[in-house]
C-alpha cells in the first residue's frame, strides 16, 4: 500500500516537472513548484521506516518553507516586476516537454546504473529525483526571465533535498537545517536582486544581460 502510494507520488512529481517545462504562465509555474514541495515532503516522510521527532519536524519545516514562503517571495518579485508570462523562451515549450521526456529516460538509465544499496526506495524514486534536478537545470539554462531561473534553482534544490532525505538518512539534522537555511537565504537574495534588475534594466530578460563580455 505504501509502495503504491509512493509510486503514485513519484509519478505525480514527474508530471509536475513536465508541467513546469511546458507552461508559460509564471503563476502556474510557482504553483507547480509549491505542489512539488508538498509531494516531496510526503515522499520524504514515506521513505523513512520509523521517522523520529526531529526528522518529522525538519521535513515539516522544510515543506512549509518551500511550499509557502518561497513561492510568496517569488510572487512578490512577480508583482514588483509585472512579469506574468515567459513569452519567448530560448527553447520553445513543445520542444521543452519533449526534451523533458528525454531527460526522464536519461535519469532512468542513470538510476539503473547507480544501484541504490538500501531498500529505502524503488528505483523510480532515484530517477524521479534525478529528473527533478535535470528539470531545474534545464529551466535555468533554457529560459530568459530571471524569475524562471530562480524557480529552476528551487526545483533543483527540491530534487537534491529529496535525494538527501530519502537516501542519506543518517545526515545529521544540523546539516539539513543548514542546507535549508542556505536555500532560503539564496532565494531571498535572488528575489531582491530580481527587483533590482527590473529597476535598473526595466526588464528581467537575463539573455539581454550581456553588457559584460570579452
Amino acid at each position, binding site marked *: 500500500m505504501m509502495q503504491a502510494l509512493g509510486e503514485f507520488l513519484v*509519478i505525480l512529481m514527474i508530471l509536475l516537472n513536465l508541467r513546469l517545462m511546458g507552461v508559460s504562465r509564471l503563476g502556474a509555474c510557482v504553483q507547480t513548484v509549491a505542489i512539488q514541495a508538498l509531494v516531496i515532503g510526503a515522499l520524504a516522510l514515506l521513505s523513512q521506516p520509523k521517522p523520529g521527532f526531529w526528522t518529522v519536524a525538519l521535513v515539516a519545516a522544510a515543506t512549509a518553507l518551500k511550499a509557502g514562503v518561497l513561492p510568496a517571495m517569488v510572487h512578490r518579485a512577480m508583482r514588483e516586476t509585472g512579469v506574468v508570462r515567459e513569452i519567448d523562451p530560448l527553447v520553445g515549450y513543445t520542444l521543452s516537454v519533449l526534451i523533458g*521526456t528525454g531527460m526522464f529516460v536519461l535519469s532512468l538509465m542513470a538510476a539503473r546504473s547507480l544501484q541504490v544499496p538500501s531498500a529505502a526506495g524503488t528505483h523510480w524514486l532515484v530517477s524521479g529525483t534525478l529528473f527533478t534536478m535535470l528539470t531545474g537545470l534545464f529551466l535555468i539554462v533554457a529560459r530568459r526571465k530571471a524569475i524562471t531561473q530562480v524557480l529552476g534553482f528551487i526545483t533543483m534544490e527540491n530534487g537534491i533535498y529529496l535525494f538527501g532525505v530519502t537516501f542519506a538518512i543518517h545526515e545529521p539534522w544540523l546539516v539539513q537545517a543548514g542546507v535549508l537555511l542556505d536555500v532560503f537565504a539564496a532565494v531571498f537574495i535572488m528575489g531582491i536582486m530580481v527587483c533590482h534588475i527590473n529597476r535598473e534594466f526595466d526588464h528581467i530578460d537575463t539573455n539581454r544581460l550581456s553588457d559584460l563580455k570579452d
Partner: protein
Amino acid sequence: MTHTYALFHVLLALTASPLLLSLINRVKAFFGGRSGPPLLQPYYDLFKLLRKGAVYSRTTSWVFRAGPVVGLAAALTALVLVPLGNIPALSAFPGDLLLLAYTLGLMRFFTVAAALDTGSAFEGMGASREVQFSALTEVALLTGLAAVAAKVHAVSLSTLSSQVWAGGLAWEGGATVLLASGALLVVLLAENARIPFDDPNTHLELTMIHEVMILDTGGVDLALIEYATAIKFWVLSALLVSIALPLRTTVPALNLALGLGAMLILGVVVGCIESMMARLRLVRVPQLIVAAGVLSLLAFIMAVG
C-alpha cells in the same frame, strides 16, 4: 456465451450511439441553464436527412460519393473490434488493436479525400488541419495502447481489457493504465472533434476543423456521416472504459451493465469538459496533443522499465 453479450453490445451501440451524443448536448445545456434539445433529437435529424435528396457539385468525383459510405463501413468494422470492459469484442484476434487504429485512419482518410475532392477552399483548410492534428493523435493513441499491452503482455484488445485490473483495485499496473487513460481521453476529445479541439456547435467556417470538411454534403450522405461519427465516439469511449474501469466481475450481464454505466458517466464527463473549457487557439492544439503523447510515452516507459 460471451459472444451473445458481445453481439448485444454491438446491437446496443448501433441503436444507442446517437443517444450518447445527445446526452453530451443535454449536459452542456444544463450548464448553460437551458433545457436543451430532446434526447431523441439525433434520431429525428437522421430520419429527416434520410428522406432528403442531395446535390452534387460538378467538380466532385466518385471519391466524394464514396467518402461517407467508406466512413460508415470503417466505423462499423471498428465497432466489431472493440471490447467493453470484460465483454470481449465480437471479433477478437491478436493484433486487432492495430486494425482498430487503422480503420479509424481509413475513415479519416476518406473523409479528408472527399473534402479535398470538392475543390473548395474551406474543405481544404479543414482537411489540412485534420491531417496535421491526427498525425499527432495517432502517436498518442498507439503509444498509449502499446503501454497497456506491454504491461499485461497481450496483443489483442479483448485479452487486454480482460487482463487489465485483473488484480482488483490494488493492481500494480494501475499507474501505467491511469497515465494511458489520461492520454486516451485527450485522444477521444481530439478525434471526435469536441472542445477543446473543435467546437461542434460553431457556425464560423474558419474556426472549424471537422464540421467544415462536410460542409458540402447533404441528404443521405450527411446522415451516413453523422451516424458514423456517433459510432466512432462510441468506439473510442468503449476503448477508454475498457482500459480505465477498475471494476470487473465474473457475471457478464453485470459487466455489461457496469460498462454501459461507465460510458454514460464518460459522456457526462465529456459534457462537463466541453462546458468548462473554451476551444483552444489553433497553435495550442498541437501542444496539448503532444502533451498527451508524452503521457502515453511516460506510461510506456513505466510499463517497460
